[in-house]
């Protein structure tokens, strides 16, 4: 069978000594970053991004992906022990994880969430293996009009479905695309928005943008807010991690349901692990015969969300690898990593770079096994990480960001860009503008322009081409639906919040 042959080849790539090492490194760093509150996954990936420049593209991607799913494993630790979500995707885990820790069952909670994470991730990877090649082979028939529509749909969905105002999200997409256009125009070689700077001819650095908007802005927001609190080291000793038979019995179905929901929401643009975790928690609570146990340390309440967010982490790669259309800011960074290494993302990726594609997928198995090993015996180590004071941590984070940016070009201009996007990122937090759509727009902007221009040349300047070709028309119709729905719900949400506010005062 062809699939088995590919899997074998991928496993060979993933098990090479270098790749296992970098997979381990990524998973380790990811867990570390996930455990420490105040350093998010986007900040972490962009911070470690420059380190992957010297690597082979496959190895680079393996490591970056390891960081991405590693944070979700690690993030549950902070949620359970401190009641502070290590990443937004772990926020729901606090609801039942922290009460478990208070009852002295923190060790059990950590152990079981690791199992749930592994289970969810496995389901996600299996779906990824099965569906990505199928979708990609279908997408090979797509023309520029279809691609433009697809990217538009991805951007609209990602900016309107996420929390907050849909209009603000869309505005950030537009701003991101505008930033993406800085530099040399690929078709006419005209320098755009460079204002005479030679350094800007190559465009704004993706790394500087991501590190400024996510890293620097996050550091600013966390200073004097993130505290380290006391943890009882007794509760996480190894002997206390053994779950009871009742725990295991209760955990099965929530894991299965969580993985299913997570896999589904992971593939959709704009939803992703956070929403998957939240919804699967809500489902568990609704179908439970004893909903009153939730919020007081119900094991179902940590198993379902942790399975869901890890499944979503993996299936998020399906649209990214099969279509070249990322659904979240993190996936946009992955795509950016590919492009920096000179690999064109899209449906041809699987056939033109089979080593990379199958190697990456098989490395997910390796990585998840590594994480399983890393997390269970080393729980005590991670807990100690939580005690690093933030006043030592954040100058180091800033330093790594700056050196990372500098090392990409050996030009201080990159560091100035970090500074500029740090200002922009902080301003965006003040005004309530989301950062993820900005990054997505930035990565997709140049690709969108290229496809838009090509589609218009082919159609002789007729906009109708996007609505006449059936696939493109269908995608455009869905996009329109998402847009209307997104604006409608965000207005409704705001109204409800305003009413609540009025009632309180």
């Amino acid at each position, binding site marked *: 069978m062809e699939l088995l042959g590919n899997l074998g080849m991928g496993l060979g790539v993933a098990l090479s000594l270098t790749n296992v090492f970098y997979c381990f490194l990524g998973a380790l760093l990811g867990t570390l970053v996930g455990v420490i509150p105040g350093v998010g996954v986007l900040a972490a990936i962009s911070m470690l991004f420059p380190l992957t420049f010297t690597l082979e593209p496959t190895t680079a991607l393996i490591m970056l992906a390891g960081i991405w799913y590693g944070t979700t494993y690690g993030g549950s630790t902070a949620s359970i022990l401190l009641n502070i979500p290590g990443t937004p995707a772990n926020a729901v885990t606090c609801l039942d994880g922290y009460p478990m820790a208070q009852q002295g069952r923190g060790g059990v909670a950590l152990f079981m969430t690791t199992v749930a994470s592994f289970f969810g991730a496995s389901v996600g990877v299996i779906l990824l293996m099965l569906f990505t090649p199928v979708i990609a082979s279908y997408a090979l028939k797509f023309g520029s009009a279809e691609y433009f529509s697809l990217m538009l749909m991805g951007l609209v969905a990602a900016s309107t479905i996420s929390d907050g105002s849909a209009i603000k999200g869309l505005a950030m997409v537009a701003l991101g695309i505008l930033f993406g256009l800085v530099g040399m125009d690929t*078709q*006419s070689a005209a320098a755009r928005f460079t204002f005479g700077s030679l350094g800007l001819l190559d465009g704004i650095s993706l790394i500087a943008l991501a590190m400024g908007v996510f890293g620097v802005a996050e550091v600013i927001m966390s200073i004097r807010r993130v505290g380290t609190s006391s943890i009882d080291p007794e509760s996480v000793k190894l002997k206390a991690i053994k779950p009871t038979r009742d725990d295991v019995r209760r955990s099965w179905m929530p894991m299965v349901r969580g993985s299913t929901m997570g896999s589904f929401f992971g593939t959709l643009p704009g939803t992703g692990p956070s929403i998957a975790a939240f919804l699967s928690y809500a489902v568990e609570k609704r179908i439970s015969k004893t909903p009153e146990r939730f919020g007081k340390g119900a094991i179902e309440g940590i198993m379902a969300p942790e399975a869901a967010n890890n499944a979503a982490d993996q299936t998020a790669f399906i649209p990214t690898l099969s279509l070249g259309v990322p659904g979240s800011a993190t996936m946009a960074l992955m795509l950016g990593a590919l492009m920096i290494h000179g690999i064109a993302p899209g449906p041809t990726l699987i056939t033109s770079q089979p080593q990379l594609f199958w190697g990456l997928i098989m490395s997910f198995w390796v990585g998840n096994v590594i994480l399983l090993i890393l997390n269970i015996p080393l729980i005590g180590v991670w807990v100690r990480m939580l005690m690093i004071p933030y006043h030592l941590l954040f100058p180091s984070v800033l330093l790594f960001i*700056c050196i990372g940016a500098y090392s990409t070009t*050996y030009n201080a201009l990159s560091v100035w860009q970090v500074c500029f996007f740090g200002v922009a990122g902080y301003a965006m937090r003040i005004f309530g503008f989301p950062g993820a759509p900005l990054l997505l727009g930035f990565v997709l902007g140049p690709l969108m322009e290229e496809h838009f221009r090509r589609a218009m040349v082919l159609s002789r300047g007729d906009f109708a081409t996007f609505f006449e070709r059936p696939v493109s028309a269908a995608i455009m119709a869905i996009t329109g639906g998402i847009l209307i729905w997104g604006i409608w719900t965000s207005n409704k949400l705001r109204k409800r919040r*305003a009413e609540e506010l009025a009632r309180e005062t």
Partner: protein
Amino acid sequence: MLRFDLKDFIGGFILFAIGLTAAGYAATEYSLGSLRRMGPGMFPVGIAGILAGLGLVVMVQSLFRPPERADIRIWSPLFVLSSIAIFALTIPHFGLIPAIIGITVVSSMAELKVRPANLALLCLALSLLTPFVFRVCLGLQIAMFDWPF
């Protein structure tokens, strides 16, 4: 007391201004071409126009909304951002180690509490660790000291 959401009004205005400026700049500096053969200016003008439009919508919406309290702090962001600026200024002229010490000292002040002993130790640790990671492990060619004199 304001009756509308000033924070969103200003935010929307900034987007509107950026969009309008960018659209105007692109329209005058770069050739637009035709829909059939688009020049380098066409797509930027369109996107910047959309940005200006969305900024306008945010502004208009803010007029019908109750004010929200903005959480603005001045000193912490200022110290963090100036520490990055100091790094950018130092590294091309003085080398890596002075830049490390500069960024560490200035950014530490963002806590608005100076711990001299801690700070000195952190500077020392980072000055030893970062060259090791970037020079030895990654083989980057960054000068440790690069005195201009």
